[in-house]
């Protein structure tokens, strides 16, 4: 993907399934009580969340991420946009929220790097850069790993794009990658 690709902006949720972040989502996926079998690391030593519909009412976030879309929730009643995604609006407390896609590109607001002392499961990437990224045309500022350049070559204001990626055990997460 190049920098010229237009980000998808604010497309409103279109399916009833997308909108199901309220209690209905949990009712539709009664918990099996079991963690996904592919996971090898004990949950309490693993920063990556349990993503399945039997574990979280926000599983749609991860499903959409698998489709290449970084998204979050907003409240159709008061327009409040949330990060991270939520099941209840912090402003009006409505539980009927909807999903929308976030822009795929942004600029670095601040950054640093982890040169040592990384938590378990994250040591392999050391040294790695992290930063706060202002998404384009959007008030949301997200924190994340920044790949693509060593931290010594990053700059405030530098351009990045969102990059979903797969974990070895089948889960999915996101990070940023520098754009020249």
């Amino acid at each position, binding site marked *: 993907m190049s920098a010229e690709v237009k980000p998808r902006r604010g497309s409103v949720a279109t399916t009833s399934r997308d909108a199901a972040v309220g209690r209905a989502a949990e009712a539709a996926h009664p918990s099996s009580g079991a963690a996904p079998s592919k996971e090898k690391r004990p949950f309490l*030593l693993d*920063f*990556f*969340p349990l993503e399945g519909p039997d574990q979280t009412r926000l599983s749609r976030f991860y499903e959409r991420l698998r489709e290449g879309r970084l998204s979050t929730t907003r409240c159709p009643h008061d327009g409040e946009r949330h*990060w*991270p995604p939520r099941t209840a609006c912090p402003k009006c407390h409505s539980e009927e929220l909807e999903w929308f896609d976030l822009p795929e590109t942004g600029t670095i*607001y*601040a*950054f*640093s*790097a*982890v*040169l*040592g*002392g*990384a*938590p*378990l*499961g*994250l*040591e392999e*990437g050391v040294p*790695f850069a*992290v*930063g*706060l990224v202002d998404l384009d045309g959007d008030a*949301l*500022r*997200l*924190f*994340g*790993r920044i790949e693509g350049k060593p*931290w010594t070559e990053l700059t*405030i204001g530098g351009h990045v794009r969102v990059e979903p990626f797969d974990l070895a055990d089948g889960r999915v*997460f996101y*990070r940023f990658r520098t754009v020249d």
Partner: protein
Amino acid sequence: MTGRSVAIVGGATTLFGVRATTWPEMAQEVGAALFRAVPELRSEDVDSLFVGAAEPERFAFQSHVAPLAAEQMGLRPHRVIQRTELACASGQSAIRSAYAAIAAGISDVAVAVGVEKMNLPSMAEANTSMGCVMDRPWDGPHGATAPPFFAMVAQRHMLEHGTTPEMMAAVSEKNHRFANTNPHAQFYAKKFPREKLLGLPVVAPPLRLGDCSSMTDGAAAVLLTAEEFVPRYTKTPAWIRGTGQYSDFHNLANAGSLTDWVGLTRAAREALGRAKVSIHDIDFAEIHDCFSISEIVEYEALGLCASGEGGQFALDGRGDRGGDLVVNPRGGLLGCGHPLGATGIAQAVEVFGQFARTVPGERQVPDPEWALVHNLSGSANVHSVMVYQGGGAS
């Protein structure tokens, strides 16, 4: 303010450092130290116990630590017994809870104790525990821990205000030098001149090792009581005159300005307002220098200097002996180390010791009357402030 006046009437800390001892053993050690420090105290006097502990489940594989601490310390609380958890401010939370219980008449004599065991055989495991102070499923997988967050604060402060590594080193040098007067401090015996600090390895750019407080084992305890019982224990009480807290975000995306800690300004305004004093009345302050940049931002948020001038405030020695006020006389978190739940209690032990004139002479602040204590927790998303007055009547 309604309720009874409450004072700290005694306190003690263990040695802070990389300790060859366990969580329960440190609770015993600090209990013994407290009873030595307050010879008039009988264990049956203590009706309530508040235990500040941030992550005993992670660091010591132990929950339900309040009765554990009580047993270790030889206490049998019969009014209130509980743990307070607020990450790096768990200790001050224990004091605040004891204060509230005594002011309300629920407790008459309470102990607030903080214990943290952080050094484990696997420091990767310890770092994992530190990471879960953040918004674990959203910020955690990116590798968020305290150093990179406070490094971004430093980076923005340097960009917005021209703050320099030398200014941050000035904070660290001062607090390490103060720790050379504190035999309980982790870095009591180590010298850190500015040029040495500026040559230490980078941990999270632009922060170097000497800009960061340490993973530390330690415990501290204070005794609190109501005005009518104060004379039983001391002639030099540290009266709690004001308290304030503020929390405005948790996920790092919602931090807003990294360099303007509005939460601290609000918490301090609340605490100083209740005490009916101004920041300029404060003779010494114990503030949360988890990183050198933190103390610089705190100078500004507390109103000790204008926004953006915290670095120059440090460089000019205005928080040093002979400056506007003495900041972190015991050595701060940078010099003493930072055993999460014990830090806030150790700060209060210093306040009591300064008012009682029991600290070593070279550490004594001249004629102190007012002290301010600040704890922050997590990614500076909670600020906790207390104001104390020494001497005088209740």
